[in-house]
């Protein structure tokens, strides 16, 4: 009896895990295909090989006196080797997500981040912060204009007082009292 409960017990665990996976699966966008897995593994190989070449140039030294390149070289070789295994073994994996039309949204998000960083030292933080929240609320979030304007202004004002007066952190700013 005791022997038979053991495999059964593992079945329940495996079954619940499957169920959990299924539960998570329902909310997920479509799975990316083999190309995604291949690209992922190739990027890994590229990082490993590239870093190994650089590390080799830094000097490996010996075990008695390891050079600066020894440890990064070992790690890079491991990355390349594991990625090569992944290239072969991982083709059938379904844990990637396909890019869809809504993948444009993060791209817009990145652009606003970069624009913010460029504008910050030039104009202070108020204008880029206001622009960022307007774009995120209206364009990315689909809020109404009224909500967008109210929330953006309140948010920027709150950050202004929080950082400059609450935490007393000197941010580049335009408006001074």
């Amino acid at each position, binding site marked *: 009896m005791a022997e038979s409960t053991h495999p*059964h*017990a593992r*079945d*329940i*665990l495996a*079954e*619940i*895990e499957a*169920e*959990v*996976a299924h*539960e998570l*699966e329902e*909310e997920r*966008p*479509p799975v*990316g*295909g083999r190309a*995604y*897995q291949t690209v*992922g593994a190739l990027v890994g190989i590229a*990082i490993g090989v590239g870093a190994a070449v650089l*590390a080799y140039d830094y*000097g490996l030294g010996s*075990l008695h006196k*390891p*050079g600066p390149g020894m*440890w990064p070289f070992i*790690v*890079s070789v491991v*990355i390349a080797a*594991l990625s090569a295994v*992944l290239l072969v073994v991982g083709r059938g*994996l*379904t*844990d*990637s997500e396909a890019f*869809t039309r809504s993948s444009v*949204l*993060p791209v*817009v*998000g*990145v652009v606003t*981040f970069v624009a913010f*960083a*460029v504008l*910050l*030292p030039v104009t202070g933080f108020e204008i880029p912060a206001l622009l*960022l*929240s307007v774009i*995120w609320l209206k364009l*990315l*979030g*689909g809020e109404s204009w009224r909500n967008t304007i109210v*929330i953006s202004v309140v*948010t920027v004002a709150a950050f202004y007082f929080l*950082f400059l007066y609450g*935490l007393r*952190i000197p*941010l580049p700013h335009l408006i001074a009292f």
Partner: protein
Amino acid sequence: MDLTAFLDGFALVVEPKNLLYCLVGVLIGMVIGVLPGLGPAATIAILLPITYTIDPVSAIIMLAGIYYGAQYGGTITSVLLRLPGEASSVVTVFDGFALAKQGKAGTALGIAAIGSFVGATISIIGLTLLAPVVAGIALDFGPPEYAALALLGVLLVATIGSGNKLKALIAGAVGLLLATVGRDSFSGASRFTFDSLQLADGIDFVVVAMGLFGVGEILYNLEQRHGKRHVPAKVGNVWPSRKDLKQSSGAIGRGSIIGFVLGVLPGGGAVLSSIVAYAMEKRRSKTPERFGRGAVEGVAAPETANNAAATSSFIPLLTIGLPANATMAMLFGALLILGVSPGPQLVDEHPDVFWGVINSMYIGNLLLLILSIPLVGLFVRILRVRPAILAPITALITILGVYTINNSVFDIFLMVGFGIVGYLMKKAGFDPGPMVLAFVLGSIIESSTRRSLLMFSGDPTGFVTRPISGTILAAFVVLALLPVARSLLKRRRSAAAGVESSAGVAEVDAHRGPGNVGIAGDDGGRDVVVLPPDALDVAGVGQRVRVPEPGAGKHDHHRTE
């Protein structure tokens, strides 16, 4: 155990300022637990810059509060929306949502809150008693032991955590590589800096964490949010009846122990323990068919276990200086920023931090119990806040936060760069968690390995001949080879017995009730259709239905292992 230090720790925690930070921490934790999207690791990453402005003890108390507070908050959405706020509350969905449909959402939330409190408190008592002992043992560790332990930590997090193990190992190795960027502390040579002055001192941990976790998750959430509105179920009476309490007391007790034990293991943590605790109750139950249809134990067990695990995962961090999961890696980084290096000497050198954090958890959990039972209605209302409104606010906190660390625009660009990497990793099925963790441990592994080699005058067998480091390395090898051996064994077995595997399929499905399929398990033939692998394969590869790939189908589930 040093009783005076323990009591001093309490005195520190009940200082109004620290009580306030504790309250703020658990409140933030509950809120982000309720809101699907940002997890505790991402939230702590985003808030890391704050640690530069407040004192160490308060900062750690607050950040720790976010972590265990999130475990409470995650329950609420699981029960009311069938939408787990945190991965560790996924199994709670089965019975929690079933109870909610029967109008017993309040009971589920009440039992979860009580279970969480009991589990966490038992775990803190264990932590209080065990942590100083473990730290005492670890005091004898030298560089070889540290190198071996840290390496084992990276391996464990990669292999026990969710997701594909190979991918997690690759991510971990890339994290180790990233840690080498900058000036080599032994020879002074610049590595991977590409002649950039900003990279000469290495990459700031906060920038990496904020990028990979914070920005990566923000970008990912932007894409996921296509206006699916969920209407929360009604919450009735939150106080569970005496019968419910009696019914779940066993589950709470067992959940506490399972959570405590699994939480200590690196990579184990809250997610695994909640699944194991649920499985345990279902197996022990005389009426397993109730599970998935609104069994209170099905809520009590995983919720107790995930809180107990969240608490006990502090043990390796505070005693050996090894973060057990991604969130602990955040706290590890935060401690380093504050000039406190976590490890066996922590209890002696910084008893205020050590006991302050541990004792704040007694208070924090009490606060959470108080917050979550009477104020549950308030948190339900938070569910109505649209994620679109919070997105720009989190984005601004992140950008301004990373800028203020060094007043550096370069840091913003670097963070956005890591954010893009984090986003792409998620898309390609790589978990950024092991990468951040390995990044934190990278310099420890390298410097202790090289220091050990100096000790052994270049003879690498020294690692194996020292008893403790030898044992740890042996464990490393066994754990590294175990999955390979298991998959080989599985392949051989499945090739040998096709009959057995088909029986297994039928069984998996018979229990697949909770979703929306009948539990009756009428016949084996029809069931196969419902199996996830088929559905996924179809979604993934489109037209082709590949028959001879049961192995690949199994792989689909490793996300949650």
